[in-house]
């Protein structure tokens, strides 16, 4: 296929289990086109997650390569690879992997923070300050909206303890009116977590945690979404809920590679790839 977004070529990966080598991937090749929803199936230990980590740049193959949007991922400089992970690839993990000290909003905002430097946040702040000033001068309804928003944010931010101010004022307040913040709010709304935005992961159900993890994965609008058993830790109802979110994202053009061992989950995908003993046995649409 000429319009492949992702291509894995003969990926080999071996782990050392004590002194004996364990070959997990034995020359896996895979192509994913833009907008495709691919499910990678296989038994436990067949190398599904390892393949996902390698195509996402989290792990290195022993042999073979991964090409993302025409660029050989492992030939890229380290910084570029990290940027690619930040902006072009989103990960969803089976165990959510949310930071327990951050609330839902902060967890979802984290990729933006990772990808943005302090000067850029400050620059965004300045732009927003100018916008507010402009609104004041022209007296548009935007003025009321901005003041309401600011006062709400101030009350929320300054109402707590000094310690709360310390760690929220600097980063969170500075981005209060930024585009990233707005984008985050939109996504929180989209995954139905508006009411839970100030809650910490420990206060959420499994489904809510996974929705938060999905929101975090898509907040930077990545071109590729990698999901590792996204429903593996959820009951059937919650699993369906998550799959519905993924299906909707795919309908909106999101490319998704999902690892699962559940055929019912895999049936949602356009194409199912069977991984058996580190090799692709079958690829069916």
């Amino acid at each position: 296929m000429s319009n492949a977004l992702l291509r894995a070529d003969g990926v080999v990966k071996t782990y050392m289990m004590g002194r004996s080598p364990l070959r997990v991937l034995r020359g896996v090749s895979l192509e994913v086109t833009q907008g495709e929803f691919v499910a990678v199936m296989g038994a436990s230990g067949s190398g599904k997650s390892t393949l996902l980590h390698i195509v996402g740049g989290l792990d290195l193959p022993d042999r073979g390569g991964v090409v993302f949007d025409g660029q050989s991922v492992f030939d890229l400089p380290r910084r570029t690879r990290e940027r690619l992970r930040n902006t072009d690839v989103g990960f969803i993990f089976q165990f959510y992997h949310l930071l327990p000290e951050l609330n839902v909003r902060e967890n979802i905002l984290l990729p933006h923070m990772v990808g943005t430097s302090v000067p850029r946040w400050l620059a965004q702040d300045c732009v927003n300050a100018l916008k507010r000033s402009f609104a004041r001068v022209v007296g548009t309804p935007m003025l009321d909206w901005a003041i309401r928003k600011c006062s709400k944010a101030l009350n929320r931010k300054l109402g707590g303890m000094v310690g709360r101010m310390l760690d929220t004022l600097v980063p969170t307040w500075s981005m209060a009116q930024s585009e990233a913040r707005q984008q985050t709010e939109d996504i929180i709304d989209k995954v139905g977590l508006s009411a839970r935005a100030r809650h910490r992961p420990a206060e959420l159900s499994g489904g809510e945690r996974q929705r938060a993890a999905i929101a975090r994965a898509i907040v930077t609008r990545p071109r590729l979404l990698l999901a590792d058993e996204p429903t593996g830790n959820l009951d059937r109802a919650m699993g369906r809920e998550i799959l519905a979110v993924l299906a909707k994202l795919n309908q909106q053009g999101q490319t998704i590679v999902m690892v699962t061992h559940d055929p019912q989950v895999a049936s949602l995908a356009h194409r199912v790839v069977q991984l058996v003993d580190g090799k692709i046995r079958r690829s069916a649409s």
Partner: protein
Amino acid sequence: MYKLFLSLRYLRKRLIALFAVGSVTLCVFMVLVVISVMGGFLEMVKERSRGLLSDIVVDNATLQGFPHYQEFIDALQARMPDVVVTATPVIYNYAILRVQATKYTKPVRVVGIRLDKYEQVNDFANSLWYDRFYPGTTSLGLQLQPVAGWDEHDNRVLPEPFESAHQKWRQTASAEELAEYDRMPYSPPPGARVFAQTVAPPGYVGGDEFEAEDLYGVIIGCDVINERTKTGDYLRHYALGSEMLLTLLPMTREGTVSGEGSTTLSLRYADDSRTRVFEIDDLCVYVDFDMLQSVLAMNPQERIDGGFAPARASQVLIRLAEGLDAKEVRARIEEFWETFRASLDVDPLSLETQLLDFVSVETWEERQVQFISAVEKEKVLVTILFAIVSVVAVVLIGCIFYMVVEKKTRDIGIVKSLGASSSGVAAIFILYGAAVGVVGSIIGSVAGVFFVRNINEIQDALARLNPNLQVWSPDVYTFDRIPNSVDPVEAVVIVVVAIVASMLGALIPALLAARVWPVDALRYE
């Protein structure tokens, strides 16, 4: 952005960080208190040493003193008029002080001074108690005892010149000084300022009375005869002008006790001096130079061969013009002394020659070098000791951060999967260390400054609870109060070092965190 955000969040959310903050706080507090007290002690030593001596001291370190001092002063002032502001001779000797009224006795060091000149070469004027409230009344010359009387409104009135000097002082004194004066207990003794009084009926108009006999004045070290209260004030048991007896042993030029034996002087208590150096305030009394010189037979004496032995003094104190380098001027004065010494027509085998040979020229700092350098070394030593103790805090922070990194391994994987770099992950923990350092050093320095500023009050409070907790005794520590000033530069250096040390403590765990491979971290349970 995320580095600052996560490090601050970990600081607040991880309870273990409080232990690291606590150890930094304690170290900063400890080092700040030690450096401030030792530094303050050193500064007080230097300040008082300079204030009690003069810029340059010419001395021969013997009780006999050295001759031709006045010729030297005159020649020096003529040769270096732009350098030497003033110079004055001083005599040192030892005596027994006896309070005539109570028969209280005490060994003292007698300092013979020309008061007006002595006040010009050092800060002695600022140490005088009565002269502060009755400016210009303190004198070492012949004087009577001032006796307070009463005016027609039954107000206490002092004899002239005390009354008018005091009224003049009141016009220039600040409200605080006036309040302090009015608060102090007056006669009858003991009080903070004590005058003899007439026993007179109400309505008696006095205040112009003096006791009959003229006696030379003596300024007495504050701790020699007065009682120090727990609040640091003094109770004066003897009225100004009380008679004091001073028994001296005049010495010959050869350094033997004069054949005439001891001499007892009757003197009037003219003032007391509080230099705040306990060793001086508890030992020294000050009398008129010329009178003491005469009593000690250090004035020109007729020799058996018909000639005259020149007058002698123990020391010459020299005040230099402002802004001069005392060490550089000392070399010039030393050179001048050698020239002057060579120009004297003295028999090389005579005793005068020997006394002149002992003369040395020193700056006030060189004069006190043993004491000052001892205190300086003590300060460095104590600082090093406490810095070594502080290394424990760095190790503790290292351990705490190692535990934090262990616990946060999965978080490291998550952050890396979101695109964070290894250096970014290391920065999270280094910033975390810096945050611990900033918070700990701010708390420690605020507590340290508060403690140092109130160290005397804290000690007094402890001593009230249990007298054994009086750790700073004026008998032991030269100064009667614990130094309580904080050098802002030293405080800033301590804070910066604490922050850097905290970052260093976090460095190794941070580097370990940076090396974590994201996939391994995500698998970590």
